[in-house]
Structure formats: structure tokens, C-alpha cells
């Protein structure tokens, strides 16, 4: 217990177990405990990232660099009003001593602040200045990044259909020749690879007709291959979700149930009773007919006025 942020003390373990089980109650049905815990988590997350934003980004990357040295000019024992006067004096002194540094950080801070004008309808255009700068820079970097990311894959797609054994020089199989015999397994691998690329690309060619049998057949194979890929995506998604779930189960079984709950014969009866209760609850809940959806009383009230004379309320 206690590796990598896991709860250490008894109350932490109990709190973590309570929250874990509370969140998992959603599997049974939606409930107030689940919603309350969810809201707490959202609130904690927002507060946490606000502090991280200041402590890790704005503080060290802007504030400390621009104004951090001012603290040295303020006497340690000075009273609050005196400190404020000292601080203002230090600001002006700093500006007069380092005018270009001040202008540099002022412009950077100003540009960064322009993002917040997205919240204003009237001055929205100001935010477009920095958006334009970001998009321009992003496009240039994106072009370079995409090229370096995808170009090796394009070149790797050109594979010999009849290939010899792979070597450091020919990672997908050397071209077959007098001294290079055919490696049938590697060749089959390359044929599947090239066929997949060809068929999937044909499937996405929408600019010409798919009436011809060859094109239609290739596109159909491409669609099946895509579906197989989506199946692989889904399988990997389940693996991730399962790992997240198992980590919590491990915590409950190992850290909570085995180490914090006293191991007595009575506890096993309690676990057994809990399991029976859970099964009975699921059984009776699934037998109950589903609740009918609420019928709206009137539809007329929800209608908005339309036409030239209509005004927004």
C-alpha cells in the first residue's frame, strides 16, 4: 500500500473506498450519491487546474519573470500599507531601469489577455488577433510535424509483394532475386498490407462512380477491413476500461477489505450477506416493469413566438 498516490492512512483508505463504491453505485442505477460525488470531483478538478495554471504557467512563466524581482525592494517587516507604497515605487523604478524588459513582458501579458475577450460579444475581434497568430504558427508547425510523422509511413507502404526474409536494410523483406529466396510468410504479410491500403483508399474515393464491379468489390472489402479495425479499437477500449476498473477492484479487495476491515468469521458472513442482497436486488429490479416516461402536460407553452413581430424574452 502507498505506492504512487494511493491512500496511506486509515481514514484516507476508508474515504477512497467510500468514493469508489459511491461512484460505482451508478452501475445499479442513477442516484443522488453518485451525482453528489460527481459534482465534488468536477469542483475539485476545476479548482486544482486553476491553481496549476497559476503556479505552473502564469506564475513562473510570466509573473515571476516580469515582477518577481520587485520583492527584493520591499523591506521584510514593513506594514501592509507601507508595503503597497514600496511595491508601487519599485514598479516605477523597475520600469525606468529596464524599460525594454517592461515593454516586452507588458506586450506578452497584453497579448495573452486578449484571449479573454472571447467572453465579450462587443470586443470579440480583439481575441481574433491572438487567434490569428496562433493559427498561423500552428499551421507552419503542423505542416512540418505532419510531414515528419507521415512521410516514413508512406515510404514504408511500398512493399514487395514477393519478398525475401527481412534484414536491417529491408525491414519488410528484401526483393526476391537469384540469391534471395521467397519468404512466404513475409510475402503474405506484405500482400495483406498492400491490399488493405488499396481497398480502404478505393472505399474513400467518392469522386468517381462505384458502379463498376471491380471498384465496388474493392470498396466492399475496404469497408470490411475498416470494420475489423474498428473492432480492434473497441477491443482495446475494453482493455483500457477493464484496467481502470481492475485497479479500483484491487484497491477495494487488497487495501480496503483485507487491511482495514478486521478479519473475523463474522466479516465473511457480512460479505456473503452483502453478495446475496446485491443479487436479490438485481433480480427484483429486473423483474419490475420499466417506468413509463413522463408525459408533458402541454406543448403549447414551449412554443416560441415566430415571425417579424416576435421579440426575444
Amino acid at each position: 500500500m502507498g505506492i504512487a498516490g494511493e491512500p496511506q492512512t486509515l481514514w484516507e483508505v476508508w474515504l477512497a473506498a467510500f468514493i469508489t463504491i459511491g461512484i460505482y453505485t451508478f452501475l445499479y442505477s442513477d442516484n443522488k450519491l453518485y451525482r453528489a460525488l460527481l459534482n465534488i470531483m468536477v469542483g475539485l478538478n476545476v479548482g486544482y487546474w486553476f491553481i496549476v495554471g497559476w503556479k505552473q504557467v502564469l506564475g513562473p512563466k510570466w509573473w515571476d519573470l516580469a515582477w518577481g524581482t520587485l520583492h527584493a525592494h520591499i523591506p521584510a517587516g514593513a506594514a501592509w500599507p507601507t508595503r503597497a507604497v514600496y511595491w508601487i515605487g519599485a514598479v516605477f523604478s523597475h520600469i525606468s531601469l529596464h524599460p525594454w524588459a517592461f515593454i516586452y513582458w507588458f506586450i506578452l501579458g497584453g497579448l495573452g489577455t486578449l484571449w479573454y475577450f472571447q467572453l465579450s460579444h462587443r470586443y470579440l475581434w480583439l481575441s481574433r488577433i491572438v487567434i490569428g497568430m496562433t493559427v498561423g504558427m500552428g499551421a507552419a508547425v503542423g505542416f512540418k510535424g505532419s510531414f515528419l510523422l507521415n512521410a516514413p509511413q508512406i515510404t514504408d507502404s511500398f512493399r514487395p509483394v514477393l519478398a525475401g526474409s527481412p534484414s536491417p536494410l529491408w525491414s519488410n523483406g528484401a526483393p526476391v532475386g537469384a540469391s534471395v529466396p521467397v519468404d512466404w510468410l513475409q510475402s503474405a504479410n506484405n500482400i495483406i498490407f498492400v491490399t488493405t491500403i488499396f481497398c480502404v483508399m478505393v472505399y474513400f474515393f467518392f469522386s468517381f462512380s462505384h458502379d463498376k464491379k471491380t471498384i465496388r468489390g474493392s470498396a466492399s472489402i475496404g469497408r470490411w477491413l475498416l470494420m475489423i479495425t474498428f473492432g480492434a479499437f473497441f477491443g482495446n477500449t475494453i482493455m483500457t476500461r477493464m484496467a481502470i476498473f481492475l485497479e479500483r477492484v484491487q484497491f477495494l479487495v487488497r487495501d480496503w477489505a483485507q487491511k482495514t476491515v478486521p478479519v473475523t468469521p463474522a466479516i465473511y458472513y457480512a460479505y456473503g450477506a452483502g453478495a446475496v442482497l446485491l443479487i436479490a436486488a438485481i433480480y427484483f429490479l429486473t423483474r419490475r416493469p420499466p417506468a413509463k416516461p413522463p408525459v408533458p402536460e402541454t406543448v403549447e407553452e414551449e412554443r416560441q413566438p415566430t415571425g417579424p413581430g416576435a421579440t426575444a424574452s
Partner: protein
Amino acid sequence: MLDFLIKLQKVDRRWIYLAVAVACIVPFIVPMRLSVHPSRETRGVYEAVEKCPRDKVVLLDSGWDAGSLGENMGQGQVIVDHLFRRRIPFIVVDIGGSAQGPQFMNAVIKDIHDRKYPDRRYGTDWVNLGYNPIWGWQVITLVAKDIHKAFPKDYQGTKVDDLPLMRRTHNIDDISLIYTVNYSPCEDYISFVHGVYGTPIAFACAGIQSTTEYRFIPPRQLVGMLVSARGSAEYEVLMYPNNPEMRVSKGTELIVPMTYGHLVIIFGVLIGNIGYFAERWKRRRV
């Protein structure tokens, strides 16, 4: 019989949840072992670490936190174990991942250090440079050019010039391998480090993310990849082929319950499809 088969596709989801829960809980209570066979992508990472020289460092980008602990923690544990064992120095950074990344990785390192390699020293055998919030190419490029500028202090606030390992590590020429552990590793390492400098890159990622990252393995843009908890379980098999009792990573702990959980889901998919085809058959008969 046909009606029973049709009902199979309408099993209440809570019964399936219960079956998955039982399949997952029992292996934790009753210890079991299954054989694990390392995949090609896991072997790639292992062989890359085996080839690393001792006079260069491995850059370990760790941006995971509690949300992906089940998958990423084991991936961090096995690489730290391997690097400590081979006495290859490593530098932990967190470039744009979770702000808790360095803290989580530090706990993993401390655990392995205390249990297995107490003679390894901070500052000489490893360094944790902490968190840099800027995700992507800006910091990655800066690390490649001058790591001291990207991280002037370590996570404790010590100046990097005061750390012996950092005094001999300046830029990408001093880095033999970049290993990034994250729910979704940053692909800018491939573009802006491997694409420019040719430094080997290895990913350790969540299973959900692996499908999009496999494409980097055939063209050797990635030397290998650890996928989910199974990646770390496979890696430990390579590290301790004849000592199963030494395999204690999170991945090894989770791989057996994960297998049984997957079996229940496969069984659920099968019975759902049986019900679907039975219903279709009945409709055709009518």
C-alpha cells in the same frame, strides 16, 4: 428453445456487470497465474533498453496520474526496474502531461529503489526534473537543444547544474532513448525528435490509444510499445523469464483478472449474437 435463445440478447446489463465483477474479484482473492507471451512491440522496447549505453541517459517522460494508474503505473515500474538493473542513468520529465506525473513516478522510483536497488543515488543514477505544462513540440524541441533551459531546476527546486548527472547531460546527443509513459503519448516526439535527430522512441500507452500508435512500429518510428497492463506484464516476463516470483508490477497483478474479465465480455458478445441470429432466423420462418 428458440425463445430462450432470443431472450439471451435482452439480459439485463446489471447481470453482466455482476458477472464481470465476480470474474475480476475472484483472481485477487484466489491467486492464479497464466502464461504470458511477450509480443513483438514489447520485445522492441526491451531490446532497445538492452542496447542503451551506460554513458548516455534515457529520457523518461511520465505524464500519468491516478486516472490511468492501472495501465501506466506498471509501464513505469518495469522500465525503472530495468534501467536500475542495467545501471543506465535516466531523467524523468513531464512535458505537458498531468501535473501529478512527477509525483506518481517519484513514488514508483522510491518503491523500486528501496526494495531492490538501495545503492542507486539520486542525482547520479536518476534525476526527476518535474513538470513543464507546455504540451508538445515547443518544450520537446527545447529539450533536444538544451535541456537545462527547458528544466532549469529539478522537482525539488535544486538547480540542475548542481546535479552530477545533469552536468554531463546537455542535449539530445546525450540521450540514447526516449520512453514516454502516458495515457496518450505525445506524437511530437516522433516528428520533432526522431524525425530530426533519429533518436529511438518508445511509447507506453493506454490500450485505447494503442490502435492509432501501432502504425509507427513498421516504419521504425517507434522501436516498440508497451500496451496497457499487458505490456508491462509481458515486459516482466522478458526481464525475469525464470523467476515468476520477481514479477510484481501492476501489469502482472492485473493481467489475470483482466483475462477473466475479457472472457466474460467475449461470452456476453457471443450469447448476444446467438440471440440476434436466433431472432433473425425466427423472423424468416414466420
